[in-house]
């Protein structure tokens, strides 16, 4: 689930995040949103790559990173990404409106935190 959600978040980041009347659109890599909104796809990419490398690439990662287990790292990154997405949802957007990219990123971030919690709750990781 983390791999799929990470891919969704990265794809969404290249689609219109905000739509500004008479001006156009900007995505999560755009001047007005970089690097805060960009943290969401970056976290999604990091999470997806780590899971894919560990599961399919047989890459050996250290058991802990700065005292955190990998499932804990995923929960932290996924929660942070979802929190940012929700913050954008409730912020005052003025004349701007969300584009399709934002909604895809939001969906991906919710998938990231769900997948991270599922990973943390796997019997092998408890």
């Amino acid at each position, binding site marked *: 689930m983390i791999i799929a959600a990470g891919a969704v978040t990265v794809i969404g980041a290249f689609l219109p995040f905000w739509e500004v009347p008479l001006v156009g659109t900007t995505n999560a890599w755009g*001047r*007005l949103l*970089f690097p805060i909104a960009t943290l969401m796809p970056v976290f999604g990419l990091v999470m997806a790559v780590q899971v894919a490398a560990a599961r399919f690439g047989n890459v050996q990662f250290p058991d802990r990173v700065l005292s955190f287990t990998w499932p*804990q790292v995923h929960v932290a990154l996924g929660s942070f990404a979802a929190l940012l997405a929700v913050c954008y949802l409730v*912020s*005052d957007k*003025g004349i701007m409106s969300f584009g399709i990219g934002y909604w895809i990123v939001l969906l991906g971030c919710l998938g990231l935190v769900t997948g991270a*919690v599922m990973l943390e709750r796997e019997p092998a990781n*408890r």
Partner: protein
Amino acid sequence: MTSSSTQARRLAVGEWTVVGATVLLAVASLLTWYRLPSNVVLDAGTSARAFTAWSGGFSPTTLLPLVFGLAIAVPTVLGRLADLQLPERIGGIRCTQLRLILAAGALLLAISEVATQRAYGPVSLQRGPGLWLTLLASCALLVGVVLDHRAAASPPTPPTTSSDDLTGT
């Protein structure tokens, strides 16, 4: 009997740093984060030239460092002064780890905020002192949490033996 001032002194250096950094974050949130360049002429009906972390359009992402600071400092102070028993773990993550995550998140957001080019319509905004103070306070918050984390992880210091104890007097 222990007075509240004596209890307050029980806060360790790392905890004092966390509390101080959170107070700084609160103050910084009320200072100017962004301002319009002085040569920009405002439209009729637009009065704001300066924006704080609480201004619409910027919050709530600009308030997250303060929220993270409060989430670290309030349980720390309550745990010390009110002997509040806090849970060891929240959602599989130890509280000490959670504090590290929140402090690192606050610093990451502060750095990202400094790096972001905010704009008011077509006009790029200038960065104000509140933003720089938030960056400074977020650094202090992480330092305080790391100090606190190291103090909690280090073994307790054995009691010192005075020469009187050795001589038995």
